[in-house]
């Protein structure tokens, strides 16, 4: 079975755009969407959901992306889980903090479909094709 990719984003529009772009870019993995930081942590830490990687938004109501990342790093089972950040924040401080917490790549949300497709194909190339 192919391990899915977990996308954490409170904005349903942005999530849908990514899913569409991923399909277009040929990213074959199933994509599961969590609409909040709490939901993502519950899926991974409590329900044993094991994604190949997490694509994390930073600015979310409630538990923010940086806090989710911090908690994932604290738990032994997810200490080495691959996490990408996909956010609308271009701030250097957010980038530095994400890198410090061990995010693999930091993406600023593109403003065109083309940009999203490019991003999805970059991710597709990075993730192993099969488990």
């Amino acid at each position, binding site marked *: 079975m192919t391990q899915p990719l977990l996308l954490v984003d409170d904005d349903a529009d942005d999530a849908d*755009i990514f899913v569409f772009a991923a399909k277009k870019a040929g990213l074959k993995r199933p994509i599961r969407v969590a609409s909040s930081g709490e939901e993502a942590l519950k899926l991974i830490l409590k329900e044993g959901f094991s994604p190949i990687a997490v694509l994390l938004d930073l600015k979310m109501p409630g538990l923010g992306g940086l806090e989710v990342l911090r908690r994932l790093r604290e738990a032994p089972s997810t200490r080495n889980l691959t996490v990408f950040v996909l956010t609308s924040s271009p701030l250097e401080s957010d980038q530095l903090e994400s890198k410090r917490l061990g995010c693999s790549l930091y993406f600023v*949300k593109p*403003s065109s479909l083309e940009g999203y497709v490019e991003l999805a194909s970059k991710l597709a190339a990075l993730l192993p094709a099969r488990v």
Partner: protein
Amino acid sequence: VNKVPVLSYLESLGRRKIAVMVLLMLGFVAYLDYATPVEVSFLTIYWIPVALATWLLGRAWGLGIGLFAVAFGTITEWYQGRRFDHTFFFVWETATRTVSFVIFAWMVAELRRAHKEQEQAKAGLETVVKKRTQHLERTVGQLKAFSYSVAHDLRRPARSASVFSEIALTSGKGVDEETRKNLERIVDAGRRINGMLDGLLQLSRLSQAQPAPESVDLTALARSVVDELKAQEPGRRVEVVLPAGRLEVRCDPNLMRILLQNLLENAWKFTSRASAARVEFGAQTADGEKSYFVKDNGIGFDPAYSDQLFQPFHRLPSAEGFPGMGVGLASAASVIEAHGGRLWAQGRPNQGAEFRFTLEQSE
């Protein structure tokens, strides 16, 4: 209000010491008056302790010391042997002296009051200016934060509008011609909104930038910017003139790069229809002031619009058909403002444009 140093020193002594000093002074003057022949008048010398008492201790003290001065003057003259033929002459003499001292003390008191009022008004004004400045600074700070967050938050819906229209367009399901055109318009509008928001965010970040000045060679910086422009459009032939030697200036290298990028890009862009495009960067000293310029022989502009050039998102009619959002020159102005310099432009339609800037004198 000018402070007299002696007076401010005396004021700092405290009322008790001042009172003792004034009384001693009065006694000393009376002694001098007594020790000198009756022909030597001491009337005006008595004014000194009276003036000091009025200024430093107030009107009542001034009047009191004044009356003592009259009494002392009269008594010393009596002891020196001055006699009046008629009691009326004595009364007249004493009365005129008394009146003169009362008027004098009253005048000094009024002068003192005016002086104090002026001081208070000045202090009040300073407080008002300080308060207003703080209020304005706070408001400007809030506005900057507000414009940043608005621009940032608007990107989401703008992105959704344009990307979902694009998805609808590329879904492969048949849409009729009119719907396709309308969707294309939404995509286009969304892209424009996003471009403007990016510009707004850039301006917002620049307006909050704190320059970190160091020694920068503007010639090298301009050359690297020009190289980038050439790399982006290798097909274009532009004669670029840069200073022969180094041009050392104290400024923030990152902000200065943004400035030169915007000015040179501008010149590069608006010479694209010139037959023999020419862009020049250089420095000049006139009237003891050093200024730097970026000159081109492009489409120029109508001088009537020169004050609108640096307004964000404001594009002159002549810029129609050239790419851009109208953010570049506003960004340049922001950089110069952060450096405490001036930026201005000269040009004529179809006769090129010249942008000139100064940087704060490092003294």
